[in-house]
């Protein structure tokens, strides 16, 4: 009964979404106040309907209703409760429903938090979101039904894929999707502004928080996914330039560009048309990222299973959304008036450079990702493009970006000079140069340059804060007051830039990793990095739904003989799913990871893959710092519409407290 109600709720949501689109956009076009006023209510009711459908799916999972195909295929009675719940989005159909759910929540969020928007603009934004929502709900309803029944129901489900039975991966899709879908709001604002024919500073101020929020989530989502593949897959790497991974990187790159160009729109009313185009591109790439991998166009090691009828529907839907918005752009963009002149060498100029470079990187990654399916289609030849391609194209383009990243924030708006900017950054540049030289002396080669670049990003971010607070120049009290008075957005930017520096340091450190594959018998010792690894014993164990072979590894310092760690890499066999997974053992001290994965057993010994990864945790730590920087920036009162009112009220309250 519950699944049928959920199914009905999806159908209801399609109708609401359609009316949401038509009533809001038509009402805003005609200036009909009653239609405009109906938009928020429609967005809220759509969110409720989709929310109910999603709850119905989760409920079927919790009660193990195996008459629902999705539950029968991806859950079992013995599955832990957490994975019964997360199993709802661990498969194709459920994940699309989750995607729709987040999209409808975005519409509801605009309805609730957008009270200070001009009502016609808000109606248009909600209308555009409704239109997108309608398309994907229709997809769910017709060819990708998450609540389909199976008869007769099996007595036991097939269980969750053991690889996905992991908390990191359980929460990866919702975070990643929220990032993808968050850009839908920026997209809706862009389309609404094209319909309205107006983009101004206020537009930049409204678009920025949404973009920033989506960017933070996407950054964390990508980091979480990469971390999962590092500790779960046991290949010793963290990024494989696989089409699925690239699909999430592409909108991140243009989203980052949008984040920066929206600043220029907000502060200087320049780059308007460009920002609108970026918003459209970012969401288009998000859509392509979620759905291309499902259409079977891109193939990957970790793609979802796919079905050709869906592919056609998806491509048609993508064509409609992307083509439609680009057509609208071509038609309406000339209406937008450019304003705000600036010299090439200025803060705006630096942000333009950031945009150009980020878009170039996006272009090469897109080319590398789309070339193989293209060649397959046209020349009927199966080829692939591997990591060497991406490394040799992305790194040379990222280098000037990192160099400019330090310089940009200290340039002044409108017109700037290089000399004063360099004067403020000389110590950061000097310190980075010293690191590079020391690195070369230590025979690190290109990694030395990488470490220098990473340090440059961290120090120049610090230099910007020092500069703005005039620390070391003003008396300490004044500087402290200035530090406290700096807007949070400034801190956010500096933190995010420094975070990228930390992540880059981690990636460079990973290139210096030492690894070895060895066959060890109990009692044998091998040396990897500066550590001795001794296989103490090999034992068997069992869990709730698996049996395991567990190795005990004693790691000691090769020189001093001091014990460092005892590690237990294991290999699990899941009889129900007929699968074996590798349970990687990782020990970190924050500066290097000891990493051991078990292979197969032969002649009483076992094959071990051992890595010593310098600075590896910094990659994900850096990404977290970046996301934190974004969140810090998001908490800036300026970005919250209507915040001044509340600020004034709070001040008054503070004074009252002080008076008492």
């Amino acid at each position: 009964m519950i699944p049928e109600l959920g199914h009905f709720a999806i159908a209801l949501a399609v109708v609401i979404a359609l009316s949401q689109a038509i009533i809001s956009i038509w009402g805003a076009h005609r200036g009909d106040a009653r239609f405009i006023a109906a938009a928020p209510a429609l967005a809220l009711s759509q969110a409720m309907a989709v929310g109910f459908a999603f709850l119905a799916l989760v409920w079927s999972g919790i009660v193990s209703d195996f008459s629902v195909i999705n539950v029968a295929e991806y859950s079992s009675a013995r599955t832990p409760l957490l994975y019964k719940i997360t199993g709802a989005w661990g498969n194709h159909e459920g994940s699309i429903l989750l995607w729709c759910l987040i999209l409808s929540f975005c519409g509801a969020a605009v309805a609730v938090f957008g009270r200070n928007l001009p009502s016609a603009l808000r109606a248009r934004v909600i209308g555009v979101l409704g239109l997108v929502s309608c398309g994907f709900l229709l997809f769910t309803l017709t060819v990708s039904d998450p609540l389909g029944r199976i008869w007769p129901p099996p007595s036991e489900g097939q269980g969750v894929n053991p690889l996905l039975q992991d908390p990191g991966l359980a929460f990866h899709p919702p975070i990643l999707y929220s990032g993808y879908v968050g850009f839908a709001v920026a997209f809706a604002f862009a389309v609404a502004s094209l319909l309205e024919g107006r983009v101004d500073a206020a537009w930049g101020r409204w678009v920025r928080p949404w973009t920033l929020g989506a960017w933070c989530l996407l950054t964390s989502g990508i980091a979480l996914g990469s971390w999962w593949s590092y500790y779960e897959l046991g290949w010793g790497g963290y990024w494989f330039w696989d089409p699925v991974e690239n699909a999430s990187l592409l909108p991140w790159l243009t989203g980052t560009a949008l984040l920066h160009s929206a600043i220029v729109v907000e502060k200087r009313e320049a780059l308007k048309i460009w920002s609108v185009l970026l918003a459209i591109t970012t969401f288009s790439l998000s859509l392509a990222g979620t759905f291309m991998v499902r259409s079977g166009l891109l193939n990957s090691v970790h793609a979802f299973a796919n079905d050709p009828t869906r592919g056609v529907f998806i491509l048609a839907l993508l064509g409609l959304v992307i083509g439609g918005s680009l057509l609208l752009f071509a038609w309406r963009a000339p209406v937008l008036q450019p304003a705000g002149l600036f010299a090439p060498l200025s803060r705006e100029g630096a942000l333009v450079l950031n945009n150009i470079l980020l878009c170039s990187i996006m272009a090469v990654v897109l080319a590398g990702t789309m070339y193989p399916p293209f060649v397959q289609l046209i020349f009927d030849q199966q080829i692939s493009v591997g990591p060497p391609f991406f490394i040799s194209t992305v790194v040379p383009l990222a280098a000037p970006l990192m160099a400019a990243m330090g310089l940009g924030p200290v340039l002044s708006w409108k017109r700037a000079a290089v000399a004063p900017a360099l004067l403020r950054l000389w110590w950061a540049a000097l310190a980075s140069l010293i690191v590079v030289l020391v690195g070369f002396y230590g025979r690190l080669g290109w990694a030395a340059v990488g470490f220098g670049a990473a340090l440059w990003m961290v120090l120049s971010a610090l230099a910007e804060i020092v500069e703005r607070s005039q620390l070391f120049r003003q008396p300490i009290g004044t500087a402290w007051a200035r530090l406290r008075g700096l807007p949070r957005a400034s801190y956010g930017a500096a933190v995010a830039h420094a975070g990228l520096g930390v992540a880059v340091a981690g990636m460079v450190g990973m290139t210096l990793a030492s690894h070895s594959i060895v066959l060890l018998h109990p009692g044998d010792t091998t040396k990897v990095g500066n550590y001795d690894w001794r296989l103490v014993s090999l034992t068997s164990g069992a869990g709730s739904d698996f049996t395991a072979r567990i190795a005990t590894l004693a790691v000691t310092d090769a020189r001093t003989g001091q014990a460092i760690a005892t590690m237990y890499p294991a290999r699990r066999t899941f009889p129900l799913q007929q699968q074996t997974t590798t349970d990687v053992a990782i020990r970190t001290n924050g500066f290097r990871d000891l990493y051991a994965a078990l292979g197969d057993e032969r002649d009483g010994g076992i094959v071990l893959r051992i890595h010593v990864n310098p600075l590896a945790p910094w990659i994900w730590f850096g990404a977290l710092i970046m996301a934190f920087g974004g969140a810090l920036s998001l908490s800036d009162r300026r970005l919250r519409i209507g915040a001044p009112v509340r600020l004034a009220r709070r001040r008054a309250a503070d004074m009252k407290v002080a008076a008492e």
Partner: protein
Amino acid sequence: MMTRKRRRLWLVGVCLVAFGSATALTLSAFSGDIVYFMLPGAVLAKHPAPGRVFRLGGLVAQNTLHDRTIDGQPGVVFGVTDGAGHIVLAEFAGPLPDLFREGQGIVAVGAMTPDGTFRASEVLAKHSASYMPPDVEAALKKDGLWNPATGQPPPAAAFNGSLERTAATKAAGG
């Protein structure tokens, strides 16, 4: 003060430099870093140059999987077949994917050695029991060796056919 025209000129210049170098990088990388996909039949027919990296796809031939030490590291040798009687012997040093077994569809990245063995640097097999890599599936379909529409791929033994013997002796001889 800079004129609007000069400003635009700067912008166009920077764009040209950035996108131009992006294009140059892409093209030069495409000429060197493209990895072709081949079934064993194509490998035997075309004899790719030793050292040229390509992806070998197919099914692990039955009774060909053996342990062997390669360059001092524990490794394996196995035959890769396309079911039409072509077998390429491959060697790989390192832990195999969890689902690697005889009859499983796999894709291996690597290059031929001068002695005619495929030296894999990476072996991919999807983490699912009934999985056939899309590339292998497409290639088998193209060559008329297996149509996915007709059902599950034939069992490994049928794929091997009469060549089982040759590959096994070759593997044992190595």
